[in-house]
């Protein structure tokens, strides 16, 4: 196959995955949350158990008027949703589903995914500032403080896995994975999961969008398609973080018939993590801002540093 066609096909495949997987996670959230709370969830759209609910929501969002507040900084306000959304699309391209099934194989893909997702926060900050709304600005402040604090333990946890595998590439890390890592890297895995949920601003870390306090944080002034982009970026973020967790800590494609069904194993493990993220939302109430910072700096950072030291010791003594 010639190169331009291959690149186009790969890009298209990532785009399709980017549009389908978040919807799947969103529908799962509707259903899982509903059943945990003794309800049915959406039942009508599309017929069978309301499977087309999110498609219908999307159509509704497209029809709505696109409003830019008069006092807003128009240019920044309009660009912000794209800045929030695109990083997750780029990150998804670097996550391998099996050793040979990856859209863009890069030697430093673990660092790449972290670096790219860190850019997404700029979208929230831009949205909050440009809206000229006090709730939006407060939401952006909370988001920035939260994401800065939780990025450090996350990077440290990933560094520990990279150290254990002796590789910066996600394919190399999952290739070096063995079941013993489930115990050895357990503290790092917990730190990563908690930081990932916090980076996604999902409950119990949803201070930045706390609807009962600051309406909807940085997204208060957004309507229609631009608001839908922010929602999509949240669910795309769940997909990226869950797949990343599956590849880093659960061994990705390791499993029965991994030669043929490796990609399915990665997807299934990622999906299980996504369900866990949804479960956390149902199970815990929202943290307060000071509790949130305390958890990041006094629990997660020391835990991640301890994990890094443990990994380093083990790697050096057994090498």
């Amino acid at each position, binding site marked *: 196959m010639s190169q331009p066609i291959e690149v186009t096909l790969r890009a298209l495949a990532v785009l399709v995955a980017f549009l389908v997987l978040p919807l799947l996670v969103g529908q799962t959230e509707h259903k899982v949350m509903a059943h945990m709370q003794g309800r049915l969830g959406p039942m009508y759209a599309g017929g069978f158990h309301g499977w087309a609910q999110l498609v219908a929501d999307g159509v509704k969002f497209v029809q709505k008027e696109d409003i830019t507040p008069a006092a807003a900084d128009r240019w920044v306000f309009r660009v912000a949703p794209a800045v929030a959304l695109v990083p997750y699309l780029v990150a998804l391209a670097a996550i391998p589903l099996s050793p040979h099934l990856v859209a863009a194989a890069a030697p*430093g893909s673990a660092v790449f995914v972290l*670096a790219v997702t860190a850019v997404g926060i*700029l979208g929230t900050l831009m949205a909050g*500032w440009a809206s*000229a709304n*006090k709730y939006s*600005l407060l939401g952006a*402040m909370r988001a920035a403080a939260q*994401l800065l604090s939780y990025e450090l333990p996350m990077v440290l946890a990933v560094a520990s896995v990279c150290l254990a595998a002796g590789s910066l590439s996600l394919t190399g890390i999952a290739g070096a994975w063995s079941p013993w890592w489930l115990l050895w890297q357990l503290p790092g895995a917990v730190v990563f999961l908690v930081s990932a949920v916090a980076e996604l601003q999902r409950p119990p870390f949803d201070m930045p969008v706390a609807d009962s306090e600051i309406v909807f944080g940085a997204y208060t002034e957004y309507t229609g398609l631009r608001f839908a982009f922010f929602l999509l970026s949240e669910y795309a973020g769940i997909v990226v973080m869950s797949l990343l967790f599956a590849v880093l800590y659960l061994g990705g494609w390791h499993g029965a018939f991994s030669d043929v069904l490796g990609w399915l194993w990665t997807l299934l493990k990622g999906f299980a993590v996504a369900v866990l993220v949804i479960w956390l939302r149902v199970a815990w109430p929202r943290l307060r801002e000071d509790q949130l910072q305390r958890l990041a700096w006094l629990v997660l950072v020391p835990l991640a540093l301890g994990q890094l030291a443990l990994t380093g010791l083990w790697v050096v003594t057994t090498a």
Partner: protein
Amino acid sequence: MTALDVAFAAAGVVASASGLLAVTTRHVVHAALWLVVCLGSVAGCYLVLGAEFVALVQLLVYVGAVVVLVLFALMLTRAPIGPNPDISTSPLHRVLAAFLAAGVTTLVAAALLPLAGPARRRAGTATGDLASALFGTWVWPFEILSVLLLLALVAALAVSRMADRQGPDAAQTLAESAGDPVGKPLAEMAGRPTAQSAGELPAQPAGERA
């Protein structure tokens, strides 16, 4: 001209243009956002030159953390929507800055242009080579730099604590600029800096730019 040359030139042009915009715009937050574009395209330059890891760290540290911190500080203190006349400089400063820029450009060009020959060899820097250089040859400068950063951190903490002890006035000024993230921005949300904030706060954004 290979595709890599074109990519490098494009990233360089974007970097220079956004850098210029970051310095010339009157909108404080726009300046920070142009800085994001500038640092991002510098990362692109590194990537084209084969230093993948340096490019990624540039993105992770500068775009993901440093500029976010700058934006956070700006929005926490004063960042009105619309042009801000306070951050304009006098003609004398502009002339001096232009002279300085011309001098630096001449110096760098004189040093680098003779090296730019037709021979192109982009070997790419392996992460392992980078690590052994950083923690072998350059380990002392690296460690001394981190001690310097630690010192700055401790000193900043000490300065803020000292102001706390000196009396209510100093403590209040500091609390307004740093410690009270909720109360302060409310007054400035509509995009007009209040007289109080313009007068009392240490003019951090302006100071950084000068």
